[in-house]
């Protein structure tokens, strides 16, 4: 049976992880590779690295980091943040990333999704959608959640699927950082609407929240950052809990 995936997300700035981590064994908490290796040992199913500065000066640092991650990590990983062109995609994929995640640039020019899918295959393209419940409906925000767009989340999800996306990373801005659980309603609507895998993101605060999102929606993966970084939810314990609740995990 296909397993539900648990995906830690690492925020990267100047080649280092930001936000603290409390794994005592890791000597240098800022080293994304050390943290990534720890997550692999713990049973993470994939990793997402998000370059949160994503300036041109930082690109070389990021490419160097991606090469080092690819050399060390034996599970799939996605790299996102500031990817604006097919050239950006090429340099990241050629450095060894399995997938790239695009967000604002896909909103600006949806043909970028098709371009990446044609050149590298749909499986390479994760479209990240930041969504917020605003004036009675779920709408898409761009530029790291700073800019409201005219796009309705459900329609945009269908558009990215039709454009060739292999996967959708859906983050509810209402839930992100609240630790009150994933946004079940929009995650369910999107995962029912599209036939590609959907990764739920934003709001994870307890093991029960992971169970809930897998039981109540068709999402095939769940992503979180701080609850993993700070050791609030150890991945092996989470997986054991999900198994006990008949949710298939690796």
């Amino acid at each position, binding site marked *: *049976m*296909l*397993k*539900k*995936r648990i995906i830690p997300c690492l925020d990267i700035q100047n080649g280092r992880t930001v936000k603290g981590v409390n794994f005592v064994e890791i000597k240098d908490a800022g080293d994304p590779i050390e943290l990534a290796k720890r997550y*692999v040992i713990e049973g993470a*199913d994939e990793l997402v690295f998000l370059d949160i500065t994503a300036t041109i000066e930082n690109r070389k640092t990021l490419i160097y980091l991606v090469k080092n991650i*690819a*050399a*060390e990590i*034996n*599970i*799939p990983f996605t790299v996102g943040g500031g990817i604006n062109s097919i050239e950006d995609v090429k340099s990241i*994929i*050629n450095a*060894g*990333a*399995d997938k790239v995640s695009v967000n604002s640039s896909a909103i600006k020019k949806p043909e970028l999704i098709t371009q990446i899918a044609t*050149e*590298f*295959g*749909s*499986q*390479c393209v994760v479209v990240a959608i930041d969504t917020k419940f605003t004036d009675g409906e779920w709408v898409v925000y761009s530029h790291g959640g700073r800019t409201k767009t005219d796009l309705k989340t459900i329609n945009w999800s269908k558009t990215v699927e039709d454009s060739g996306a*292999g*996967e959708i990373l859906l983050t509810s801005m209402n839930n992100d950082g609240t630790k009150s659980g994933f946004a079940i309603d929009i995650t369910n609507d999107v995962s029912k609407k599209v*036939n*590609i*895998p959907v990764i739920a993101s934003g709001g994870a605060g307890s093991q029960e929240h992971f169970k809930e999102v897998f039981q109540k929606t*068709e999402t*095939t*993966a769940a992503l979180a950052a701080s609850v993993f970084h700070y050791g609030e939810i150890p991945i092996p314990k989470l997986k054991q809990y999900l198994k006990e609740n008949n949710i298939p995990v*690796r």
Partner: protein
Amino acid sequence: MIAIIKYNAGNISSVQNAFNRLGVESIITDNHEEILSADRIIFPGVGEASFAMRHLKANGLDALIQNCTKPFLGICLGLQLMCENSEEGDVECLKIFNTKVKKFPKNEKVPHMGWNDFKNVDGLLFNGIEATSNMYYVHSYFAEVCENTVATCDYILPFSAAMQKDNFFATQFHPEKSAEEGERLLKNFLEL
């Protein structure tokens, strides 16, 4: 020395990285002499089948592969190209395995993406690997089960997770991305 056949755009360095982690030397090449002089050959692949077949033919790699006598391992699209034909781009393939490649019906999410176990496993590649082991898959097309199938996986329907015929081996999943279990399979291939 292991030759990793270069025949398409995309990320094939991940296979080389996996062998580096195992401490085994490899080269990514489309040079016939280099491929033929290697002890083992890897035929990786992420991409579109008809495009890949055109590229193989243009470089004479189709005949080289068909006539290969060394231990040979196809991965993902590599496995599919080793079949008779593929619905992806409606293309005739290398005809090493006696089966066809079809598109998944959309009863479930497609691509089949993530970790999945086996219905059954058999053969040398799976020494020490149980049917309960999980491997990482990402694909929208599958090879039908046939007499060359040595492992089956179930997603929407049972399909060939791995195949073997003489010196030719192939996996639909990505051993290079399948953590320890995947490394175990690559080690098994190196020990053949």
